[in-house]
């Protein structure tokens, strides 16, 4: 295996420091929100993970198209990394959202559109992995994976838009304040700092994890090749 590049080593350190700093900011620096109290602090991580999950989702769809056009397996490796890391972050988003929801809405879950989209997107990811697992040939696996990530990438935003058009109880913190959206709040300066730093920290962590996963993907391909050679 190739030794870890210096850039990745630095990125590892930077991401650990950023997440630690973001944690400190979220827990101590940001002021306590007036209505919701301490539980609102979950919001900084919730949005951070949601943002990178969505980013990964889009990257996966783009990587799918890129693979179909160029037939370069590197795009496939990137796509798998993006989907896997994104699936994990989305799950964290849902979990954090539930933790916030229990005190705020008195329920762990509600079939509010945005939450439903999150659940559906997570299911698309799971379906993606089940599809890949059922195919032996790596080239076919890459092709089908690319097609499905493209389809999923198109369908989830449409689901989200369907949702935006109907009433939602999910807070609309950024964007138009719908009269029916409850629990939205405007941010003070400290909150804004924490918020944007959390976004930055999670983006750094995201890039770091994807890079690691791509390297792992390279190893996986080597193992598969060795298995094939051994069986001949």
């Amino acid at each position, binding site marked *: 295996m190739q030794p870890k590049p210096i850039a990745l080593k630095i990125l590892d350190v930077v991401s650990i420091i950023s997440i630690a700093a973001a944690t400190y900011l979220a827990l101590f620096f940001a002021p306590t929100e007036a209505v919701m109290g301490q539980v609102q602090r979950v919001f900084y991580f919730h949005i951070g993970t949601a943002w990178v999950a969505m980013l990964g989702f889009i990257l996966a769809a783009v990587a799918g198209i890129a693979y*179909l056009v160029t037939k370069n397996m590197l795009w496939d490796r990137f796509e798998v990394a993006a989907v896997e890391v994104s699936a994990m972050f989305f799950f964290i988003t849902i979990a954090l959202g539930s933790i916030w929801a229990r005190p705020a809405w008195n329920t762990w879950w509600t079939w509010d559109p945005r939450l439903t989209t999150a659940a559906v*997107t997570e299911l698309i990811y799971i379906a993606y992995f089940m599809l890949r697992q059922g195919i032996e040939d790596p080239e076919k696996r890459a092709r089908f994976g*690319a*097609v*499905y990530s493209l*389809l999923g990438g198109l*369908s989830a935003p449409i*689901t989200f838009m369907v949702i935006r058009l109907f009433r939602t109880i999910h807070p609309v913190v950024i964007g138009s304040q719908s009269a029916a959206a409850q629990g939205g709040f405007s941010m003070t300066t400290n909150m804004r700092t924490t918020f944007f730093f959390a976004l930055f920290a999670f983006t750094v962590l995201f890039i770091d994890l994807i890079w690691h996963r791509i390297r792992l993907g390279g190893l996986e391909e080597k193992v598969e090749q060795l298995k094939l050679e051994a069986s001949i």
Partner: protein
Amino acid sequence: MKKTSPSLLKATLAIVQKDLAAEFRSFELISAMLVFSLLVIIIFNFALELDIKTRQSVTAGVLWTTFAFAGTLGLNRSMAVEKDRGCMDGLLLAPVDRSAIYFGKAISNLAFMLIVEAVILPVYSMLYNVNLFRLDLLGVILLGSIGYSAVGTLLSTMSAQTRTREILLPILLFPVAIPVLLAAVKASNGLLAGAEFSEILTPLNILIVYDVIFIAVAFMVFDFVVEE
């Protein structure tokens, strides 16, 4: 100069004709889908306490769940039959544009779904005393079925080539088809409850947008899914 290979339209129609002819000889697909749909509707009767009030609000959901499940059956079987009898290889060898295969299969899958729906609607109306014979509702059902069939045909082509085959299609299809089901149920609900047209227009638009986008994407991507 005479054209050597048939046009896309001719090839598509030929495939549709083949599928319909084969089906009308044996009726294996439609009968399975029909019986399954009837059983699902009956199960819903026991699963949900459908008193008169509840019936009004859940009719759309029950109908679309039934159509989705029966549709999955039809999509699966339609592709499996091609693979089993080696028809798929024959189609791929034919000197026609691959998209003819996609459109042909999608149209015949749509036809099967519509036939089943055409039988289920009167049965449901009778069993639950709800009037479902409305032109606008039929329009919504048509749009929803088109979207479902378009995506379903592409995904069933993929799932037929995996190890897990039929089991995989619902797992792949349902998350991606959620916008269709969502919009179709909302629109159907609105129509049955007598909502204003402006409220129904939104889900209707979404159905049309989804149909257009996914037919276009599936048609572009189908080549990648069938190449050997």
